[in-house]
């Protein structure tokens, strides 16, 4: 006895030739519409209230976005704090991050910084000081400031772009690094450009616009 529904079975049905990629974009054979991850800085102005950092960072873990670094600190207004995030994601991911952050009620504004924004991080590097002269020479090379020294060790403070700090740490490596501690990146837009002013819930984000025209911008990775 027949059971179930009628109609042509799957193999007798027409199937369209088109396909989408994993990002839900129709595959246009002319254009390779895949987005490679890029590193970018997002500045978020938030109400300075308990829980706001947990809310922002919780959003990242829940949505499986990878945070490269996150710093937070006060601003000129007592009731505002600034969160600076460095993320590495493909364009649609960066776009989602901005939109999802914008949705949080304590978030005042979200801005992706231009590639020429000023970005700094700080590192404390504790090295073996068996060859003090050579250590001092390397410190000089990277503008590192001595913050502590003992017969066995020297500790330096280095500020600058990520690459500079990476390079300094690598060079210090020859003496033997005991410990390092790094902050994440903090950043501000250049000149009169506002880092995170009030912006309305944007109708079309930059990535949406780029998706539409299939133009993808590649921003330099750092300073």
């Amino acid at each position, binding site marked *: 006895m027949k059971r179930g529904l009628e109609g042509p079975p799957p193999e007798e049905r027409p199937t369209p030739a088109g396909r989408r990629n994993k990002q*839900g974009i129709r595959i246009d054979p002319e254009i390779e519409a895949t987005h490679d991850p890029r590193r970018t800085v997002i500045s978020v102005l938030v109400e300075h209230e308990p*829980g706001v950092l947990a809310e922002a960072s*919780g959003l990242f873990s829940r949505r499986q976005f990878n945070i490269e670094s996150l710093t937070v600190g006060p601003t000129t207004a007592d009731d505002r704090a600034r969160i600076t995030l460095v993320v590495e994601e493909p364009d649609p991911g960066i776009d989602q991050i901005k939109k999802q952050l914008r949705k949080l009620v304590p978030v005042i504004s979200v801005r992706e910084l231009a590639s020429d924004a000023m970005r700094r991080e700080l590192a404390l590097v504790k090295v073996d000081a068996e060859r003090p002269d050579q250590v001092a020479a390397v410190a000089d090379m990277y503008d590192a400031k001595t913050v502590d020294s003992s017969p066995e060790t020297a500790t330096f403070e280095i500020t600058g772009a990520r690459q500079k700090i990476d390079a300094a740490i690598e060079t210090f490596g020859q003496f033997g690094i005991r410990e390092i501690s790094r902050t994440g990146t903090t950043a501000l837009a250049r000149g009169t450009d506002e880092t995170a002013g009030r912006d309305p819930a944007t*109708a079309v984000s930059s990535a949406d616009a780029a998706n539409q025209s299939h133009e993808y911008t590649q921003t330099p990775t750092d300073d």
Partner: protein
Amino acid sequence: MSERAASVTPTEEQHDDQTTTDADESGDDGAASSDAETTPTPVTTGAESVIRALENAGVEYAFGVQGGAIMPVYDALYDSDIYHITMAHEQGASHAADAYGIVSGEPGVCLATSGPGATNLVTGIADADMDSDPMIALTGQVPTEFVGNDAFQETDTIGVTTPVTKDNTFSTDPDRVGTDVSEAFALAGEGRPGPTLVDLPKDVTNGETDREPDGPRVPDTYEVQERADAEIVAAAAERVENAARPIMLLGGGVIKGEASEACRAFATEHEIPVVTTMPGIGSFPEDHELAMEMAGMHGTGFANMAVTHCDTMIAVGTRFDDRLTGGIETFAPDAEIIHVDIDPAEISKNIHADYPLVGDAATVVDQLGEAVDASPEAKKWRAQCQQWKSDYSMAYDAPEDEPVRPEFIVEALDEATSDRAVVTTGVGQHQMWACQYWTYTEPRTWVSSHGLGTMGYGLPAAIGARVAAADDQEVVCIDGDGSFLMTLQGLSVAVRENLDITVVVLNNEYIGMVRQWQDAFFEGRHSASDYGWMPEFDKLAEAFGAQGFRIDDYDDVADAVTEALAYDGPSVIDAHIDPQANVYPMVPSGGDNGQFALTEDQL
């Protein structure tokens, strides 16, 4: 449901401290509340301010369970006109509030004490969050000085609920707590709706204050865009005009955004076939010629054919859930997508939008309607859609001498009720049959757990829906045996409040949807899905004081349905159905919508 006087609409003056302080201070003036124009007694505690905030927002009902940390709020509720329905479990309170929000369009309110009360609410909160339902949860909390010390019945409610609420607030100040509640209420319903929560430490609600709460207003940082960008609207309109195979895909946002009218007008004017998502059921009348009904995993074959072969999709208020899209690669692969949504974060989240239209669904669909000058020429396409409707019709056979088919019972109930009847469900096969074999024609008549898929949703949702629905709207809960067993203690509430609801348990003595998947994908190994120890639900209903009915074969159906619906109060039909019945069509997880299986061997 007992008749209640319309709630007192507070006057403007009560926001003014001057006016309220000179109100009479004799505490025994209970009669004053009979006059709607009388200035309400000034608040004296944080808890009173909480209740005043709810009253100001027009709240008529609240669902909850008492407890230590929430007691001050309940004490203030004692003097209020808000009708409180005590639930048998807090999960029921959050589901009832959720369903109340769906049916009424106004945020439903639920209350619970700290710790276990709050955690019991969480499933319902998460459910409302996934479905963007307006809801507000008020939770008691241990006194501020104990917070963080693992005090008795302390839970980090804010921490636990942050990922599943639209917003939550820990109240710290008796002067401010009422305003916190007002804001939470406003936020729950504004823009893309969702659940909000206010955590209320006992010292804050017990604390003295004479501050009347501010009226319901969303915080300044929350902005919603109403109208879509005119240029993109124009481009989208041109796309519609040139479409050869257009469809509209209507999601839950159409119902939340009161955009059903606008969508119906647009579709009928331009003769565009309409598919809905599961949360979008009711946004377009399923008996209309253009209706292609629900698409997705258990959507109709014709809906999935239309979705797969369209060249232009006007998607309104949908988040492109994977149960709808199947595999992303094969979802509407030829279609340019016009996506209307109030939440910018939904645009291009799962499916790339070629025409992103951010704004209020009704407003934007009207904008689009004004911009489209000529209807698309899609006569052939419409004929094709009709052909698919007959090729893949939702028929089933029901031989008299075999166990009762669940589809038959769903259809019998549909026929016996009005178009405005509200259906609630649990989660499983029965939920899918309730989608497929009931003909929905009105928004806010389909109440189900879509995004979270919460078994046990049906009965508490029926309670919330009953309270929100008009008297002449029947409320029917189509439940599964496994789902019903999860929250059936709510029957005690339905009996106490004499709520006229009809529960139909499609009893297959399995957690059927799991059994179906085990048959299809796990070689029929029924690990923990055989529920052969089910109670007799009709007798259980009677033990609760409800009316019980039983269906064993086709002869029983008509009488049971008629009598249960006619019974003025809660009734339960224990409907013993074909235990082997399965739900088809089916698109396996991540599969191609156009390749839906009609039988198990096509999987």
